[in-house]
């Protein structure tokens, strides 16, 4: 099927001024800090790596159990365990800087000032290429998620981060809202360079024999193939509502789901839970997108992004 004569398709995309060699990133919380999977998924092949959510102070996260498998997905309540921004820079940036991979740092806070401060500390740190602003974690009691479900709060967090960094910033939106377009527009207006969606979906699993929640945190976030058709709809709506690039997340486990996001209007995608099942999935997705472009005689991502034909 491959037209051998045609030049190889160019998979590069630019997100908020940051050039990625391809549109496939690994999602926050599912790929650690890169070092954990580097043996089997060469980091330099990734579009970017988004590291686990970082807060100002170290955070111990939730009690265990923290993760449970459900049909077609996972429900997790890790609780954003992390070594804090200084710990992160000291422990992981030396390794990441030596890899030819753009590093996107996912940041979160319990108060707006915390987001602002984490952003400030990361600004100018060599090797940090962009900030993903997590306003949508379903697993911390205070803060986090509430920012993602209130328009004013979402905009305020983004504005505060914007004021404290020159790095490209991409807020990560909560899926459990009625009007995703409004949230995408609000963060665009507040200075976001791109918008990423979706985070895992608030969910709960009960052990019927013990009549207790399976997760120590009672509820958690659903991720994986189960949420993919929901994410496609939200990405489609967000992409129509804003000018800035949209990053599609949710249930990508092969080239097909990534292509759905791109065709729906995403400029890039992230792979989360699927890394656990196949640590080399990102490579497969990148290769699959290239194959698809060759088969469909597409030379650049412009031919693919937003190419949905409605009618």
């Amino acid at each position: 099927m491959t037209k051998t004569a045609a030049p190889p398709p160019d998979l590069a995309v630019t997100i908020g001024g940051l050039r990625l060699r391809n549109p496939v990133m690994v999602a926050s919380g599912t790929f650690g800090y890169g070092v954990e999977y580097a043996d089997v998924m060469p980091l330099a092949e990734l579009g970017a790596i988004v590291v686990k959510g970082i807060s100002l102070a170290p955070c111990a996260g939730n009690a265990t159990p923290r993760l449970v498998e459900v049909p077609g997905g996972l429900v997790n309540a890790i609780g954003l365990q992390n070594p804090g921004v200084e710990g992160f820079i000291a422990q992981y940036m030396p390794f990441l800087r030596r890899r030819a991979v753009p590093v996107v740092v996912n940041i979160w806070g319990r108060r707006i000032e915390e987001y602002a401060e984490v952003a400030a500390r990361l600004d100018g740190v060599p090797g940090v290429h962009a900030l993903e602003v997590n306003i949508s974690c379903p697993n911390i009691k205070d803060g986090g998620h509430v920012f993602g479900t209130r328009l004013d709060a979402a905009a305020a967090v983004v504005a505060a981060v914007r004021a404290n960094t020159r790095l490209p910033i991409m807020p990560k939106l909560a899926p459990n809202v009625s009007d995703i377009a409004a949230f995408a527009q609000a963060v665009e207006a507040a200075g976001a360079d791109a918008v990423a969606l979706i985070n895992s979906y608030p969910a709960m699993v009960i052990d019927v024999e013990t009549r207790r929640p399976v997760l120590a945190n009672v509820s958690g976030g659903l991720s994986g193939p189960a949420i993919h058709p929901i994410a496609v709809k939200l990405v489609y709506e967000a992409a129509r509502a804003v000018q800035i690039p949209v990053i599609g997340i949710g249930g990508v486990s092969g080239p097909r789901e990534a292509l759905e996001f791109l065709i729906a209007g995403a400029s890039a995608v992230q792979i989360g839970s699927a890394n656990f099942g196949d640590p080399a999935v990102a490579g497969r997705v990148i290769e699959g997108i290239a194959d698809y472009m060759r088969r469909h005689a597409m030379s650049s991502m412009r031919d693919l992004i937003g190419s949905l034909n409605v009618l």
Partner: protein
Amino acid sequence: MQLETSTVMEHELAGGDYRLLTLASQRIADAVLPGQFVSLGLAAPADAILRRPFSVCDAGAGRLTILYKPVGRGTRAMLALRAGDSLSLLGPLGHGFPMPPSDAAQPPLLPVLVAGGYGVAPLYLLARRYPRRGLLFVGGATGRDILMTSAFAALGWEVHVATEDGSLGEHGRVTTPLDTWLAACEVDAKHDFFACGPTGLLHAVAQRAAAGGQRAWVSLDRHMGCGVGACLACVQRLNNDGEKVWGRVCKDGPVFDAARIVWE
């Protein structure tokens, strides 16, 4: 750590419901150390997201064996695996048991293994490779849960069995023969404990080690997400010089010095 597409070579009943699954492995089999594990990527069930972790029971010469018990969706689907089927193998994962260098000036202490159920799996690889023979105490609910004892005996290890229903070996928990043996030991006898099995068993071994001033290495079993240290699902509270910290069972373990574990 390597990711391989592996082929089933043998799949046989190991006693009780347990199965021994032998896989062809180009690189993981040669690299694995006792107490390390692998994770299997299964094609079925189609809606399973996670790989399944298993201790390596035996390895070498391009072959790697695991001992498993069908308990849930994934392990039950594994029952259908046949010679020639392929599956994805990730490993070696985690940190295993500390092995004394075989050329050490000092001979290693007497190794005392304590196992429950499939806990014999990593201990068998340890027994095969340990520079000194020792004892295995193995317990289970019934005789159907007592596995591989003749394999240990064939290596020249002394095997003590206990079952809760008394259907094989002594009647009671594995601590029954263990305590009898400990009581008969000389007061200042030194040995090293290596244990794998249910948490209660590991805790019991840890208590005996602490009481006797011995070291104990225990292999924990936690539900895992990634198996490589990336997701922080499998964490266990550890003592770190008085401070409590999380250890990742998959990456910092699964084998820990029992003295570091915060038993809850």
